[in-house]
């Protein structure tokens, strides 16, 4: 169920021309900003770190905006009701959708790294390949889980799709995709710690630059698990409310 749902939603997303164009352009735009921010004079590791951050930004952007608008689209096209009317737990329907979105974001990750490589000469050297190979999918899934939490709220509130767009930028900042966390005010830190992508990007950086990625990776996976659990529990409440307030369909 999860696999087929993920695969078919991936198909739907990949066939959406509009998302496709944005998906190509945005990450390159971020990457360019990141490279100019750090300047050519910086050390290789700083640049690589920025480039990795920018690449994960693309994953989050792909998820945050489409996780919310996708549910809205399903509501408009009348499929949301059918998904809810099915006997499967609704979270099993929703999860593959958001994970498919973050998977689409993987493409932008690759694009960003290539862009950095050919335009700015940033070589991607990876210290620990197995750790990196594990850190990337776990981060992608954790972003998908965050998207899942977001999309659950959209099921209930017709206007919540705007939330996804609103959250796109703050989350980059707070997770330290672009700028190091140390630059942010202290009160932001606890928020960063609660966001799995923070640990995900740390793990990706550590594994590429030769640190110890495992604690970060464990935290990232753990938080993703917590999101999933909270989302599943929250789904019931949200669905009950949607059924009592008739927000599943646009009529």
């Amino acid at each position: 169920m999860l696999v087929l749902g993920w695969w078919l939603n991936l198909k739907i997303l990949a066939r959406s021309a509009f998302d496709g164009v944005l998906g190509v352009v945005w990450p390159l735009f971020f990457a360019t900003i990141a490279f100019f921010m750090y300047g050519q004079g910086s050390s290789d590791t700083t640049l690589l770190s920025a480039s990795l951050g920018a690449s994960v930004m693309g994953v989050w952007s792909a998820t945050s905006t489409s996780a919310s608008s996708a549910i809205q689209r399903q509501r408009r096209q009348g499929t949301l009701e059918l998904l809810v009317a099915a006997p499967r737990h609704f979270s099993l329907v929703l999860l593959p959708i958001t994970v498919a979105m973050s998977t689409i974001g993987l493409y932008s990750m690759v694009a960003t790294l290539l862009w950095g490589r050919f335009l700015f000469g940033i070589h991607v050297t990876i210290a620990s390949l197995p750790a990196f190979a594990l850190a990337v999918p776990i981060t992608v899934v954790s972003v998908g889980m965050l998207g899942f939490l977001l999309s659950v709220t959209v099921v209930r509130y017709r206007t919540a799709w705007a939330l996804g767009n609103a959250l796109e930028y703050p989350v980059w900042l707070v997770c330290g995709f672009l700028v190091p966390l140390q630059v942010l005010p202290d009160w932001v830190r606890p928020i960063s710690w609660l966001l799995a992508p923070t640990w995900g990007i740390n793990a990706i950086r550590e594994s590429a630059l030769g640190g110890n990625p495992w604690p970060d990776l464990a935290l990232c996976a753990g938080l993703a698990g917590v999101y999933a659990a909270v989302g599943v529990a929250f789904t019931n409440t949200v669905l009950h409310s949607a059924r009592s307030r008739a927000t599943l369909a646009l009529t």
Partner: protein
Amino acid sequence: MSVIEVADLRRSYTQRSGVFHRTKTDVEAVRGVSFSVEAGELFGLLGPNGAGKTTTIKMLITLLLPTSGSARVLGRDVVTEAREVRRRIGYVFGGDRGLYERLSALDNLRYFAELYGVSPREQKPRIAQLLEMVGLDGREKERVEGYSRGMRQRLHIARGLLHDPDVLFLDEPTIGIDPVGARELRTTIGSLLAVGKTVLLTTHYMFEADELCDRIAVIAAGQIIAAGTPRELKAQVPGSRVLEVEVFGVDDETVAVVRRIDGVRSVVVEERGHAQVLLVSVASDAEVTQPVLSCLSGVTVGRVSSREPTLEDAYVELVRSA
């Protein structure tokens, strides 16, 4: 035990309007509806636009929570045992929404088969069988965005049957299908009954309801105003036969005279081009053709015919007097 049991079901919607001055208005869409549907029966829910048919169905298929009252499907409560209900019911609505445009028909069906927990081994033969049944075999690999309205509707029906549900809810399933397709669909619905399914249907086509339904409830403004077999409903119309007389240039006085004839219950004059048609409702045992014609001796009379009232006559009468 009835397959569908509905007791004093109510549902109201809160509508918010205005941006700055938020005003809330409550619309009572369903106001105390009760009925029951027996196993193997095809039950029709008829009523004008906005009567509350879709709202009633959505409560039965667990998409809306009732404001009050209760409903049981296959003995399970639609609020507290929603999952059990969902597993055994199918839902098909009219119109071309509710499909994944960017996926092929086959992928659409595979996805929903998965959602309904159809085991992987059964999926393939089941989907092939349904595609053939709705006449989409051979085109299942095309994306739905290229489908015509009727093709989408057929795909919907296949989707609703994927998990072989015991009870089917069909909300205007023939809307937008061509006459031949609609006739095929009616045959399909008939064949579902033959294998013991129970069906709840809404439609705006009275002949369709007359042909298919074992029993009908007419709902208007959220309340059931009449219920029974199509024959019983027709018998409720004042006058159980209709005499149609085509006339040219009849005046009100003459019509008034016709109205006074013994056995005539009502007379309606319909303009049809140059001619008018007198629709005379007649008590079933009265013989009024000769008296009516002699009243009309001064006017040119065209065709004269007599017919049974149709379900549409009955429906119009019921809804108008409600």
